[in-house]
C-alpha cells in the first residue's frame, strides 16, 4: 500500500511556498496587532510576569470557572490581540476573596501554572500586600460621594478586608459643623482585591483598581 502525506497532495515546492507565504502574511498581520492595552488590567492572584503569562496562558478559562465570587473574566479585544481570551480581574462584577479566607481556587485550577501558589502563612492582614498584590485601588475625588457631595458613605472602607488599606480623614467637629469622613487609600497596604470597587455605589465607580503596582512571580514547575 502506498503511503500518503501532505507533501504528496501537491508538489513539494508549491507546498512549501504556500506555507511560507501564508506564514509571512499571518506574522505581519499578527505582529501589527500585538499592541497591548494602555492601562495594565489586574490579573488573577499569583500571576507570573506579563511576558511569561502571554506566552504560556492556555486561554482555557478554568480559572474563571474556579472563582467562587465570579471575579474573573476572559478578556475580549479591549487590550489587544495578545490579551484575547486571557483572564482579568473585574471588580465591578466580583472581588477576590483571597485576603478574606486564603482562597486560591484559580491558582489551583490553572493547568499551566501561570498562576503560582502564594504562601500567606504568618502574615497579618496589613502585611498581605508583601506577597499578594494584584494591583492598587484609588479614588477619584470628583466622583466620590464623601469627597464631592460631602455626604456620609464609606461603602469602600466597610467592605475592605485588608486592615489599613483604607483609612479615613475628617469626621471632626460636632453638630452641624461636623465634617464628613472621607476614605484615604494606602497604596502600600492595598492588595488590589477589588472589594472597594465592587461596593462603590456611584456610576461610574469613584473607586477603581488598576494593575499598577502588582507583584508578579516567576514561573516554577
Amino acid at each position, binding site marked *: 500500500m502506498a503511503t500518503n502525506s501532505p507533501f504528496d497532495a501537491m508538489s513539494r515546492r508549491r507546498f512549501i511556498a504556500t506555507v511560507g507565504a501564508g506564514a509571512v502574511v499571518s506574522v505581519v498581520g499578527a505582529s501589527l496587532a500585538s499592541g497591548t492595552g494602555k492601562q495594565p488590567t489586574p490579573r488573577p492572584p499569583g500571576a507570573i510576569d506579563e511576558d511569561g503569562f502571554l506566552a504560556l496562558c492556555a486561554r482555557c478559562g478554568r480559572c474563571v470557572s474556579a472563582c467562587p465570587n465570579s471575579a474573573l473574566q476572559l478578556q475580549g479585544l479591549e487590550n489587544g490581540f495578545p490579551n484575547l481570551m486571557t483572564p482579568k480581574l473585574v471588580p465591578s462584577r466580583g472581588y477576590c476573596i483571597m485576603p478574606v*479566607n486564603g482562597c486560591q481556587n484559580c491558582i489551583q485550577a490553572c493547568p499551566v501554572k501561570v498562576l503560582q501558589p502564594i504562601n500567606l502563612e504568618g502574615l497579618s492582614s496589613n502585611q498581605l500586600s508583601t506577597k499578594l498584590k494584584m494591583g492598587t485601588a484609588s479614588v477619584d475625588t470628583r466622583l466620590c*460621594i464623601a469627597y464631592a457631595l460631602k455626604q*456620609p458613605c464609606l461603602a469602600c472602607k466597610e467592605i475592605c*478586608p485588608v486592615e489599613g488599606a483604607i483609612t479615613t480623614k475628617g469626621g471632626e467637629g460636632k453638630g452641624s*459643623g461636623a465634617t464628613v469622613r472621607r476614605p484615604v487609600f494606602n497604596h502600600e497596604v492595598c492588595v488590589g482585591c477589588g472589594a472597594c470597587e465592587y461596593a462603590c455605589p456611584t456610576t461610574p465607580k469613584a473607586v477603581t483598581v488598576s494593575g499598577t503596582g502588582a507583584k508578579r512571580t516567576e514561573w516554577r514547575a
Partner: protein
Amino acid sequence: MLKERIANAKPGPGPESVVIARNGTPSELVSAALDGLGGIDTFVGRGDVVLVKPNASFSVPSGTGANTSPEIASAVVRLSLEAGASKVILADHTINKPSALTVQINGLRAAAEEQGAQFLVLQQESDFQTVELEGAQTLREVEIAKAYLESDVLINVPVLKHHEATGSSVGLKGLMGLVYDRAAFHRQGLDGAIADLSLGIRPSLTVVDATRVLVSGGPRGPGELVEMGKVVAGVDPVAVDVASMALAYSLGYEDFGFDGRNAYVQIASGLGVGDAEPSSVLAKTFEVDAKEGTGPSPPPSMSSALPPWAPYASLSVASVALGLAAMIWDRRKAHGGNE
C-alpha cells in the same frame, strides 16, 4: 393579632417597654429579655412563619463584633420554634460575597441549621420586590425582600456596633440587610434613606446583641471590643436603638451619641416610627437579671452531601450503558436483516 396578644401577655415590664437583660449566657439573656416583654408567645403565634434577621454581612469569624453572635441568633430561632412557628427562616443580604461563604465563616448558617431551620441567603433581584414608601422623604420606593413580605413575624436581631459612616449601627441600620440595592442608600443620603426604610419594614420585635460590642473600627472591624454581656429587646425599633446606643455612650464612646452622628434615629422618630427622646426611652427601660436554666439540647444537624464526582460518575456510567445498548441494537438489526 399582635394587639390581642399584648393584651393577654404575662405580667412583667410589658411589651411597651424596653428590656435589657444582663448576667447570663447568650441563650439565657435572650430568654430573659423576651420574658420581660411578656414571653415569646406575645410575638409568635402557633403556625406563624417567622423571619429572623441577624447582621450577617461580614466574612469574619464570630466573636469579632461585626455580626450578630450565632448563639444569640440561634436562641431566637429556638424560642420561635418552641412557640409553635410553622417555619423559621434566618435571612440576610450580606455585604461580603459570596454570601454562602460569608455565612459559613461568621457562623450564622450553622446557627440556623443547628436548630433545624434554614439560612436564606438573599442575593438575586428576584428575591426582592419593589415597595413604595408612604411618607418617605428620601427614598420613594425600595426593593424589599420577599421573605419579609411573605412572613407573619419579623424579628430583627442586630448587633450593637460602631459604624464609620453613621456613628453606630443597631436595628434601624440593620434593616438594610433586607433590601436589594444598598448602593442607593449611600447615594441618596444615608441617614434619610435608613429612616425611610423603617416605614416599609416593621419588625414585630427587635432583639439586640450587646454581648460583645465593637466600639471602634466598625462596621467590619477590627477594633476595640467591650464585653458588655447584655441583650436589649423591645417592640419600638427606635426606642430599642436609643437604649442600646446609650449603653455604649454611657461608657464614653461618643460615636454612639447624637451630636452630629446617628441622624437617622432622629429622622425616623420625626417620621413617626418610634420614640427617640432619650429620657422618655430610659423611663420605660428595665434591666432584668437572667436566671439559671438549661434549654433543650439542639437537634443533631443532618447534612448529606453528595461527593463532587457523583454526577460525573453517573454521566460516565450512563454514557457507557448508552453506547453498549446502541451497539447491541445495531448488531441485532444487522443480524436480523441477514436472516
